[in-house]
């Protein structure tokens, strides 16, 4: 299983003209859609993705109509991958949140980062951790995860 953090997940929707790592993430998602890969992420990832595009609406980088189109595509991809059992979306409970707190002062990362890290670490089947967030990647490497940064 490969854990996909938000900064890596959004690259599937990125344009290779502007975004590094799009082709690598596209390959990964296409492999998942054809049953060759099983990906795992946190329910938090979906919230962060929606927040990223909502922020773009807020700063007028895209229109509200653009936002809805992205949302429709995102929901469609999630449904497809989940139905194929190629994507596991891990839920969050208060125990996970409280356990993730220790990583905040340890690595000076945000609660978002620490939740991704805890979710990945609590799943023993995860072989690789995909993220383009350098701070999170340093913490993940230190915790023994095999980190892949699609930006590199």
């Amino acid at each position, binding site marked *: 299983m490969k854990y996909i953090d*938000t*900064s*890596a997940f*959004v*690259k599937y*929707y*990125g*344009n290779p*003209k*502007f*975004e*590094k*790592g*799009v082709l690598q993430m596209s390959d990964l998602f296409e492999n998942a859609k054809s049953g060759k890969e099983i990906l795992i992420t946190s*329910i938090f990832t*979906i*919230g*962060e993705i*929606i*927040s*990223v*595009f909502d*922020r*773009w609406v807020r*700063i*007028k*980088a*895209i229109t509200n*109509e*653009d936002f*809805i*189109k*992205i*949302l*429709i*595509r995102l*929901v*469609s991809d*999630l*449904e497809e991958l*989940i139905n194929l059992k190629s994507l596991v*979306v891990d*839920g969050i409970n208060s125990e996970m949140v409280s356990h993730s707190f220790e990583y905040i002062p340890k690595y000076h990362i*945000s*609660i*978002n*980062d620490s939740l991704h890290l805890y979710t990945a670490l609590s799943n023993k089947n995860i072989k690789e951790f995909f993220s*383009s*967030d350098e701070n999170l990647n340093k913490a993940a490497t230190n915790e023994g995860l095999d980190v892949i940064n699609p*930006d590199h």
Partner: protein
Amino acid sequence: MTTLTADVTDGVSRLVKVLVEKGLYKSQSEIVRDAIRQLALKYDIKDVSLNEVREITLKGSKNSKESLSNSVKKLRQEI
């Protein structure tokens, strides 16, 4: 099925409760699914291709001067 969480005003929350109590919808989830379908109809969106999304994100990246992964980092810094 995917679970989405949303913050709503008290008024919207009351309206959702009334719609379910009146038997117009079986659940809150059914109301949200219908609302999204109505939005798709309003904007005449039937299906959205990945290429279309990537054209939108190219525009968004150019306008914001941020890649998507950098936007995630900025979002996390705002917290």
